[in-house]
């Protein structure tokens, strides 16, 4: 038995230890790894009616992946331009949402972490309580704000800033705002956690030596907060790229999110293998992108857990 397992059982006893270990293994293997493997398996199979499953036509194939890149066989275009464009746009938009969230959340997290007093607890509550409302309702609330006859347009037109209502939905502003807002806490809290442990004396020492505030952030706070920043960015990016409700409700008619394509394959086309292949491509691409960026910014996997 490896040493960490032995220590684990020594500390918790055999009964409780086995129970805890069993539950964790059930969670990771039973609820995450096995279903994902089954999706992976689906993605390499043809879409067959139930009687033919397991029959002679049920063989492994790359067809579903080929479809994403080249489109239907014998189609008019040499590439599946529509789906690829959606895929590419989704990733770019998720990156954009992540950067936007980081710029918005870093000052909030810094302020929360470095200020003392009871009002901080109230601020934190004000950030948390809106999340008691479910995601769909929050998205519709944003629709009310951003809609063509919505609150924001009424105000802007009444104030004379716009002559005619601006279509926030068609221009994707509502979507970005919705996605940004949906994951704001996942960006704030990891950064907050790290900055809270930053010794205030370090900021004062830098200040004492003549550093300006931008310099203090660049050289002292941000390097220290890097694990929190990477953790927050990873979560926000992954979840934005995989979001469904916000694009569905707040997206303009012409802007599909890649998850909506996946949803259509599963639900409207009843083509699970095709949907699974799209989902696998999205997942793998996101993971590779995150790993590549971690390399660029010299972040260790262990830091993400902080």
């Amino acid at each position, binding site marked *: 038995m490896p040493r960490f397992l032995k220590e684990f059982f020594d500390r918790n006893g055999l009964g409780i230890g086995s129970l805890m270990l069993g539950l964790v293994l059930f969670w990771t293997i039973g609820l995450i790894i096995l279903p994902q493997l089954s999706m992976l398996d689906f993605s390499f199979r043809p879409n067959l009616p139930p009687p033919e499953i397991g029959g002679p036509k049920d063989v492994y194939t790359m067809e579903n992946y080929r479809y994403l890149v080249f489109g239907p066989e014998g189609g008019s275009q040499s590439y599946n331009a529509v789906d690829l464009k959606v895929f590419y746009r989704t990733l770019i938009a998720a990156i954009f949402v992540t950067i936007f969230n980081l710029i918005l959340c870093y000052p909030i997290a810094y302020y929360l972490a470095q200020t003392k007093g009871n009002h901080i607890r109230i601020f934190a509550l004000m950030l948390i309580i809106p999340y008691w409302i479910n995601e769909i309702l929050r998205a519709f609330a944003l629709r009310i704000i951003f809609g063509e006859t919505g609150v924001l347009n009424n105000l802007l037109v009444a104030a004379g800033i716009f002559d005619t209502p601006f279509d926030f939905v068609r221009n994707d502003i509502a979507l970005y705002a919705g996605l940004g807002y949906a994951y704001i806490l996942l960006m704030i809290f990891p950064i907050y956690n790290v900055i809270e442990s930053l*010794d205030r004396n370090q900021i*004062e020492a*830098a200040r*004492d030596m003549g550093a*300006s505030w931008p310099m203090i952030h660049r*050289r002292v706070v941000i390097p220290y907060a890097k694990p929190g920043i990477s953790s927050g960015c990873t979560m926000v990016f992954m979840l934005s790229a995989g979001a469904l409700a916000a694009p569905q409700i707040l997206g303009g008619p012409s802007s599909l999110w890649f998850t909506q394509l996946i949803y259509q394959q599963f639900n409207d086309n009843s083509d699970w293998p095709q949907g699974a292949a799209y989902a696998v491509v999205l997942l793998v691409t996101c993971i590779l992108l995150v790993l590549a960026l971690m390399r660029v910014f010299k972040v260790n996997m262990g830091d993400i857990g902080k």
Partner: protein
Amino acid sequence: MSAGVGVDLENLWIRFGDFVAVRDANVNINGGDFFSFLGPSGCGKTTILRAVSGFLDPSDGRVLIGGNDMKGIGPNKRPTALIFQNLALFPLMKVWENITFSMEIKGASAKERRKRADELLDMIALPGQGDKLPSELSGGQRQRVAIARALCAEPDVLLLDEPLSALDLKLRQHMRTELREIQKRVGITFIYITHDQGEALTMSDNIAVMRAGVIDQIGNGKAIYNDPATAFAASFVGENNVFRGKVKRMMGSEALIETNRSGDLVARISSANQGRLKEGDAAMMFIRPEAFALAPDGASGDHFVTARVNHEEFEGNTFNIFMEGEGGKELKVAIPNLGQSFEDHTGQSITLEYEAQNAVVVPAGELAAE
């Protein structure tokens, strides 16, 4: 020694709400001095340091550095460098980057900074350690890096907030000497905060003794130790035996004190209280353990104290006798060990003598907590 830049505190008050952290402090620190603020924790000494460095605005009064009022000048614009109690080295920067951070701010090239870092590393006797991280150094080495980082900014005044308190005893004593050496070499003004009277006495040109926001006495080490101005200063700096009583008769620079327990005793009036202490005033008389000598049995008079011995101990350089004292506090006597024979007096009543000039009397006041 170079002239250095002086620091003056003029009628300085610092309040936090209703709490007065510093009460009407007036201090003139000469340029190039090693000046210590000595006092127990919570006495306001760190608050003064923060006011000098600019992290805190005085509620009233002025802070002057080199004669210039520092009002409205932020910590990043003052000619001071602060060494924090926990050093506050930047953990993610290498040692050389830490040291030259102030140059980086001014936009110096990496090459210049590296060169300066190497010079400073030589000065603090850590040559070739520039590429390490602070976490790879020992406590004493980190201490020296913090000093080098502060000196790299070429401040006129270096402020030190109990920087030795985290070190073990041996290293602390070593660093005392080293700090003093560095101060002499660079010739700038050092303002040092400590609760350790040994540190203050060994390193400082001048010391301010602080109690509960008030500066009780300013003077050099000898003056503070030999000629305390208040009961607090007498009891906080070094070991001291207190005799409570009142002034019975003034005798020029000396006074006869009617003590509560040990009869009438003679003592020198501390210079700060000459002409201020009057007959009938409540007074406290202090005699250091080493100022006593054993007297022949039966001797009596105004410089003899008789009491029962509770217990004795041998400390190597001294024989310590603990006798019944006032209010449950023991009277401590230290007889130097010069190789003489020394009999055990436990349980006996013995008589001690002292010279009037070694006993000092001040107005009755608050004593330092044990």
